[in-house]
């Protein structure tokens, strides 16, 4: 999986989470805390909410892992200078 794919997955999940957050006036992190504490009832919406949120957490963790590797490569290439970030097409497949 590439960084680009990860980011698109995260954005897709974020869109789903935003819908639920707006519907229930609760941010996902707060909802998830309540869920882990057993404070929310079992509904289809909440099952989905948990699913999307846990998937997003997992994708973000994977993103950080790949991102650190990617930045490390850039740092090695850039030396002491500024990092030279390239547009997506130029790095696809490499990250």
């Amino acid at each position: 999986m590439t960084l680009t794919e990860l980011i698109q997955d995260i954005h897709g999940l974020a869109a789903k989470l935003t819908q639920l957050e707006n519907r229930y006036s609760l941010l996902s992190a707060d909802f998830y805390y309540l869920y882990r504490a057993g404070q929310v009832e079992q509904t289809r919406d909440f099952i989905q909410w948990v699913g999307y949120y846990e998937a997003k957490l997992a994708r973000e963790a994977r993103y950080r892992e790949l991102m650190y590797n990617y930045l490390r490569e850039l740092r090695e290439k850039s030396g002491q200078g500024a990092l030279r970030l390239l547009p997506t097409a130029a790095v696809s497949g490499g990250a």
Partner: protein
Amino acid sequence: MAFSDIRTYSALVYALPERYPTIRHSTLALATIGPTLAKLEGRVTFANEIVLDVWELVDFDIGCILNYSYEIYRAGEKICWYDPFEHPHIPELRHAQDMLFLKRRVAHRQHFVHHQNLRLQMRRHRKRQPLTRDHAICASSRVVRDRVSIHPARITFRGRINKFFHLRERHDFIETAFDVYLFHPQNRAVQKNIFAPR
């Protein structure tokens, strides 16, 4: 047969009505969330007012179902379901997050076991059998039922569903709904000395 891409999974899902003549109607739809994520959502209507309501979050990168919810309705009434939702305040379900409550386990009753009633069926004295990862993560309804029999009181179902990507097992939720249909005596073949309820 194993598969791990959206196209193959779509082909399977949309071919279900052709594959299972007992399916009267299906609204299952697979929608992408990202390049490697998709959700499957919709209802499968069987004969005799049996409806299977499905939601899955599918990860095609690692080939597993991350989260799911299956509910079976008969004549509009939810009769069984399973999902990974946690129930920390129900001791028997605290770690058994994925259970299928089937009416067939309750004699002389016409209703499925409710959460709170399930504890009567659980045996705490049984020694837990070692579960391999393959055993611990499988959404096949049949396997879930087996799992319940392996260790009724404390089963950790939390995890991903890797085996769902094996075609044969992927159809088990369809079979589960059909099992419910068949379990209703009126829908089974005639058996000697067994009468359908009025």
